[in-house]
């Protein structure tokens, strides 16, 4: 074999390797799908018609899964995507979370890229839509329709499942959309209006999670007036934290709220935000949380709020808590891959 034969052979092999590697990064199926459904803008008479539309992702099989959801909320921003942080948490606790919240303000564009990354990771994105600026009454009246329609269209286009919570903890008084400035009727009207726009656009790949706060801080605020109705809601989300001053067991923290809600709906519960304040009791409370969720067939799962904000909820450096979390997460009842 002459030298030039070897050179040519190696060149061909090198090109082959590079070619295969480069092409492996191209997901042809996704590319073809986006060609098929992507650039179909408004169909003007005479222009090439868009493709017959893909049916929306069917979320039915996710509504009542056999195993429990286990999620984690992480601090992310434009430079620091969710999935990387979620993966770090997953390594620490030995289980892959399958619910990942994305917090979006009511003037943000839909974070489709993040949602897609989360889905490809194997988790369900939970979009927490927060109307900081517009009033609920205005949203209900249609003043935000253009924005909502754009958002809904983007959700439809993504065509992957997402959970959507709008104006969570509406029974509290610490958010602009809270009870201190809005009537329950405003909230319900806004929720129904947004739901209708999503339905019109065909974005049925959304799991609607109505999410009040636990009633313990304000037991006299009744939840039924805030409930939009079974046709507008898939899941009942609950936000509730184990605090030093407040309730410290699953039953005392969540049961009263769940009992009240059972008075007007039979939908399943999901603890969309929960965590515990630091201290010697945190590991026990983590155990208590896991057991409470595991024992209650009405509860679909929970999302651990691992961000320091209103309290020091992050457990990344709390080894005792991590150990407890890890031990509890071994339970095979928790966690499954979202497909």
């Amino acid at each position: 074999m002459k030298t030039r034969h070897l050179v040519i052979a190696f060149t061909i092999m090198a090109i082959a390797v590079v070619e295969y590697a480069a092409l492996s990064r191209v997901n042809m199926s996704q590319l073809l799908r986006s060609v098929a459904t992507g650039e179909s803008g408004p169909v003007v008479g005479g222009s090439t018609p868009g493709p017959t539309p893909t049916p929306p992702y069917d979320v039915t099989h996710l509504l009542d899964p056999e195993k429990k959801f286990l999620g984690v909320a992480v601090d992310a921003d434009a430079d620091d995507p969710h999935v990387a942080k979620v993966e770090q948490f997953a390594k620490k606790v030995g289980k892959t979370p399958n619910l990942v919240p994305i917090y979006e303000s009511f003037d943000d564009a839909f974070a489709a890229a993040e949602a897609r990354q989360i889905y490809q990771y194997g988790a369900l994105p939970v979009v927490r839509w927060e109307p900081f600026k517009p009033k609920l009454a205005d949203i209900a009246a249609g003043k935000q329709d253009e924005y909502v329609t754009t958002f809904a269209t983007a959700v439809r286009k993504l065509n992957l499942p997402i959970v959507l919570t709008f104006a969570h903890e509406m029974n509290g008084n610490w958010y602009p959309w809270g009870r201190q400035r809005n009537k329950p009727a405003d909230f319900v009207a806004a929720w129904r209006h947004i739901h209708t726009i999503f339905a019109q656009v065909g974005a049925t790949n959304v799991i609607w999670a109505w999410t009040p706060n636990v009633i313990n801080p304000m037991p006299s605020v009744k939840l039924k007036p805030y409930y939009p109705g079974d046709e507008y809601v898939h899941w009942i989300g609950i936000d509730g934290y184990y605090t030093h001053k407040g309730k410290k067991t699953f039953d005392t923290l969540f049961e009263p709220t769940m009992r009240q809600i059972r008075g007007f709906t039979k939908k399943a519960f999901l603890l969309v935000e929960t965590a515990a304040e630091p201290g010697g009791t945190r590991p026990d409370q983590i155990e208590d949380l896991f057991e409470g969720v595991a024992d209650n067939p009405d509860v679909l799962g929970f999302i651990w709020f691992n961000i320091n904000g209103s309290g020091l909820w992050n457990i990344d450096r709390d080894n005792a808590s991590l150990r407890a979390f890890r031990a509890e997460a071994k339970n095979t009842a928790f966690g499954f891959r979202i497909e």
Partner: protein
Amino acid sequence: MVLAPERAEVDTPTGGTPPEPEVQRPGRYTGLLAVVPFLAALGIGTTGAGDRQMWNNEYATWHAATLSFRDLAHLLSNTDLVHTSYIMLVKAWIAVAGDSPLAMRLPSVAAMALAAAFLTLIGRRVVNTPVGVVAGLLFAGIPAISRYAQEARSYAVVTMLVTLATLLLLRAMERPGRLRWVLYGVSLVAAGMVHFASLVVLAAHLVLVGRETNGEDERRYQWAGSVGIAGLGVIPLLSFASRQSASISWIKADLDAVRNFPRELFLSWTAAGVVVGLALIGALLLWRAHPRIAPAVVVWAVLPIVFVYVTYPVLHMFLARYVLFTLPAWSLLAAAAICGLGGLVLRGRSWAWALGAVLLLPAFGYLVLPDQREVRASPVSGQPDYRGAIDAIRAGMKPGDGIAYNDVFGQLSDLAREAVDYEMRDDQRPRDVFVAVTSVARGSYSARECGSPGTPVCTAPEAERIWLISTGYGKDPLDGLPPERRKLLAAYKATPQGSFEMVRLVLLTRNAPAT
């Protein structure tokens, strides 16, 4: 000796000069005789090509080829990405020739005829012209060749491309030059793009090159280079298509499958017995006369079959039609026997080959006649006679009629619906009462009916009359329908409209409301 080449082989000169090519250069114009098998294959292929009704796989070809490019992209994102090349070919052809069964099968008929011609040219180079012509004629007479000539799928094109690639290799080996190697490489890429399994023939090519050349021969490296660069052209398809899971888990490789393999490959026990038997003799005769070339032909005939069997656990490709491209090699070996046997009987006469050919070829043709008729039977054996039922619908249809399917046979492949889509493509169609999402919208070959998960519940049909195509196995044509649909159809009276092969047609007329 009858199998002697037409020119004397060149002696290897002594000294340091490289040996002259040993591949034979046949007489100049004898290549034109390839027209004979070409016309034979063309004639045999066109006979009855338009009569047999289309079936499952051919409906799929039509479905894919008649989609808009956007819808096709959608379909390919889900399935059948490997068939893109063939689908594009058919798409272009349909635009010119229309989509009748005959029109859709013509490319395959032409491809098989070309394969016969190329085989003749190969035989001419490898042995001599008579063997080539006999091989081509024998090839044209095999029932499996007729069957896949009359099939709107890529098997004929693959066979033609593999035969062409082998011919181009022989030409490149005879007189190496850039153009000839480039043509060879391009034919390899084309074959690989249409069907991966065809590239197994490279083993035969390797043997050919290896035995024809020694280590010093430049042609070895030219071959390796051509194959390497051709590989670069096939890698994209490999990379993209490997993501799509193979939808071929129904293929079996058990004892039954192996025992029936010869029949599946030739589509005739007679042809299988005759050709394989003669091929065994022919291999021996060829090995004695042409020790350099015989191994390559044997490898071409045998290795792909062994390969798909051995790799079955991984590749699931143990299916006779995937190795249809071995039939040219089998024909060539058998032709060597036919001509060689004549030579054994009439020693030394140069026309001795004619004895074998004149006796054995017509006998072969006569013996496989029943099998030739069988491969042209309509519908394809084991498939329901959808066309018969649909013709009945067309005859008795009224505006406002609906249509429903109880396609237990077709199941997930949604065959009955595909059949109606095709057979009534130019007609007014009855309204599909139970469809929720069309196959085109789903980017799939099958539609979604109401009442499945994720689709709305079935509602009472508006139509007064509904045609029901049933391929169920129960006594009642409605057996096998989901209960909610049966309930909805209980408001109708069923009148049988005819029984066809594996299909029952029922006309449901709405009961008059109680006054």
